[in-house]
């Protein structure tokens, strides 16, 4: 069959760094092609080349669309051809309604006046197509991440997309939301929309794609039909070596109770009558890994923010660390007392985009490198070098602004920030979001090293295999209530799901 899109020998440099080194890619009409590769292997960059975000002339190589060469200068040029991209970081404007977001910059108007009824009708149709049952007037900020992702797709469809590029759309989604997304993508394929799908979740990659293309360090490794590959094959090709096991569980000692939480109650920020966390209390032991599972919106993040002292809505309840009661007043106090948290939303709460990778890493424990407020650059640089090496943050150098790193490597840098010191309790909110299998393995290994040193870890995660793979104990949260507190022995995904949906609360 003729190729819809063909990219030939794409080379893209950033200064001295070659992010792409001669990558080929072929997409046939009505097919789903998955793009796999480690963090920083060049997936997002390749898609930005395809969509004209890096204009023609900024890269070497050729792009053909239906056999004709494309020399796009802006994203508008490729939109006209029917290529739509949904970026790794959501780009919707939270303050505007769904309707306004979808028609942003492409408003339907008659004689300069906005034609709201027409836009309303069209938006309603689009929302129906992506199976989102909300009013077009809803503010995007009021939607969950999963729903926002669907709005992004609706927006892409509104541009009569023939090719949809999805860059890690499922990273912030829960399993059920992901299932909706995957169904939608498959339906779109049936209606003739081709799709390039990027994800680190290889199960879903295997499930939906027709072909899988693997790149490593900016080099094309192979493109094969999905049916001929197992997830292990994909991993081997991505990492360049075989990975025998995904969860490096190690034995470690669990000590006395170190942290006593609650009971904590928290109310929604914008709607103070709605409770987000209901009478939540639990204990954490020294050297324990406590997994917290639950759907997005189950109150997990709010609960963690309360413990870390950075929750913005109304909340009450106490935390006791080493028998001392703590005030839940600010992140700074929590850090001083020995509680650290890696936040969930990397772009909003994690990175300082224009600062360098190195300066981002040392931000939280800056005092460790200072005498009387004066920084010792040598000491700092040395620590930065070590963190970058031990977490394998892929960056051309510590001087680069962190916004230029790939999404996964940004995540590693933020993780490195809170590992510079040794807190008593480390809260990780979705620590492996957007991180490739190899790096996940490294992070788990690191977590076990930490607990062996006597640090206790709370890990919030939407990925059940991960929760089951490394936790010592699992908290199950649902609608703000801790439904279960289960030791991780003979636990299965089913047990956790049943527990979440069961009546009553844990004892």
């Amino acid at each position: 069959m003729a190729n819809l899109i063909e990219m030939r020998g794409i080379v893209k440099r950033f200064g001295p760094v070659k992010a792409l080194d001669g990558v080929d890619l072929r997409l046939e009409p009505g097919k789903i092609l998955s793009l796999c590769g480690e963090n920083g292997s060049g997936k997002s960059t390749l898609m930005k080349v395809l969509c004209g975000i890096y204009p023609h002339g900024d890269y070497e190589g050729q792009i053909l669309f239906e056999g004709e060469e494309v020399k796009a200068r802006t994203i508008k040029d490729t939109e006209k051809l029917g290529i739509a991209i949904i970026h790794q970081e959501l780009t919707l404007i939270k303050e505007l309604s769904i309707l306004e977001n979808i028609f942003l910059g492409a408003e339907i108007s008659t004689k300069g006046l906005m034609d709201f009824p027409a836009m309303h009708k069209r938006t309603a149709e689009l929302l129906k197509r992506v199976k989102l049952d909300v009013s077009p007037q809803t503010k995007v900020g009021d939607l969950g991440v999963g729903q926002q992702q669907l709005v992004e797709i609706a927006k892409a469809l509104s541009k009569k997309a023939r090719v949809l590029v999805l860059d890690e759309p499922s990273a912030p989604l829960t399993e059920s939301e992901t299932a909706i997304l995957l169904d939608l993508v498959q339906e779109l394929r049936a209606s003739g929309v081709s799709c390039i799908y990027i994800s680190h979740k290889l199960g879903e990659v295997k499930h939906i794609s027709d072909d899988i293309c693997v790149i490593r360090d900016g080099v094309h490794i192979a493109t094969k039909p999905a049916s001929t590959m197992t997830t292990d094959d994909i991993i081997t090709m991505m990492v360049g070596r075989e990975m025998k096991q995904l969860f490096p569980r190690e034995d470690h000692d669990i000590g006395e109770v170190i942290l006593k939480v609650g009971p904590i109650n928290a109310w929604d920020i914008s709607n103070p009558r709605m409770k987000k966390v209901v009478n939540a209390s639990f204990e954490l032991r020294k050297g324990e890994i406590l997994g917290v599972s639950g759907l997005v919106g189950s109150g997990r993040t709010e609960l963690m923010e309360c413990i870390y002292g950075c929750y913005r809505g109304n909340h009450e309840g106490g935390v006791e660390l080493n028998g001392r009661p703590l005030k839940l007043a600010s992140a700074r106090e929590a850090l001083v007392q020995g509680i650290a948290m890696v936040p969930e939303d990397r772009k909003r709460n994690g990175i300082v985009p224009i600062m360098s990778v190195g300066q981002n890493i040392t931000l939280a424990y800056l005092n460790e490198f200072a005498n009387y407020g004066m920084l010792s650059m040598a000491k700092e640089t040395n620590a930065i070098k070590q963190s970058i090496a031990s977490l394998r943050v892929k960056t051309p150098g510590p001087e680069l602004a962190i916004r230029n790193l790939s999404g996964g490597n940004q995540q590693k840098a933020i993780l490195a920030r809170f590992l510079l010191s040794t807190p008593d309790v480390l809260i990780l909110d979705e620590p492996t979001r957007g991180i490739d299998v190899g790096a996940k393995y490294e992070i788990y290994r690191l977590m076990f090293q930490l607990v062996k040193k006597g640090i206790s870890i709370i890990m919030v995660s939407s990925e059940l295999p991960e929760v089951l793979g490394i936790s010592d104990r699992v908290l199950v949260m649902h609608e703000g209530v801790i439904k279960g507190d289960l030791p991780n022995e003979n636990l299965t995904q089913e047990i956790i799901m049943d527990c979440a949906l069961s009546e009553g609360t844990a004892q």
Partner: protein
Amino acid sequence: MSEQQATSKSADGANQDLLEKLKPMNLQVLVMLFAIIIIMVFFYFMTDGSYLTTRNVSNLFRQTAITGILAIGMVFVIISGEIDLSVGSMMGLLGGVAAILDVWVGLPLSLTIVFTLAAGLILGFWNGWWVAYRKVPSFIVTLAGMLAFRGILIGLTDGTTVAPTSNAMSIIGQSYLPDMFSMVLAVGVLAAYMIWQQRVRGQNTQYGIQNEAQGMAFTKYAVIAVFSLGIVLLLNDYRGVPTPVLILTALMLIGTFVATKTTFGRRVYAIGGNVEASRLSGIDVEKTKLRVYTMHGLLVGVAALILSSRLGAGSPSAGNMAELDAIAACVIGGASLAGGVGTVVGAVIGAFIMASLDNGMSMMNVPTFWQYVVKGGILLLAVWMDSATKRRA
């Protein structure tokens, strides 16, 4: 990817990357130097050479002092993502306070200085407290300050000029340093700088961090030495280094040190870059902002002392519109009003550019209205060029 690959890649990337990093920074400095040269040449011809006499160059430096000092404080405010519109009125008020203490109360100079600087701290603290702890947007807080401070000044002075200031007072703004003194001081500071840099190199080696080539470092020292001693010689050729220029230079060096080598400076950049991330990294955002404004108030106090001393009086209209000069200087010097970006040296060079324009246009007897138009145009041009080059990169 294997570990060896990862580390080797970042290791050989590091040197090249440094160059990459220097490039845009140098570009900014080059553009500013280029602008300065154009301005110099232009006014040199328009004034038949009198623009570049040592006398006028000395004046130019002295005129830079006030805006420059204001810009040093302002650039911290701007980096932290805030703004201060009250600077002009605050300087007027503090200058008025200084003149009143000197002329009406008859305090000795040292006490006048202490009280004026203390008043600066308090006004800065006031602004900062409303911005940081009461969460009122800085635009509004300082707009209110702009009106209120001017009002207090007029009230205090009854709308009259407080003059003449004492002889002692005039030292601050009008005196020149003895030639030998400035030369010895300059050489001393340069030596201290080199020793410090060499010690940093030693520390780097100790931690296994690569230094730039020693030859390269010596070339850098030489360039800096020739440049700064050259300026001292030039100023000595007229009547010596003006005292306000010494103050400006000292504050610029301290400001640069604070911005780049202290935890406080780093946190100011972080807050301007992403407040939420900074807060979650345990930075006390409120306290840091309060400190920025307080420090700024202190600097305004210094500028006010120089101003009153130069004018020989406290006047109810002193410092009018100075805030705009200071903001323009920061922005011309590369600071971004969105926060997180800016340098102290850039701000001072920006102030120098503003002063060069002012000075040249008054020498040419350009009508005041044209002076405003030109300065506005230059500001627009500078910011446009900045965003145009950024977009391409």
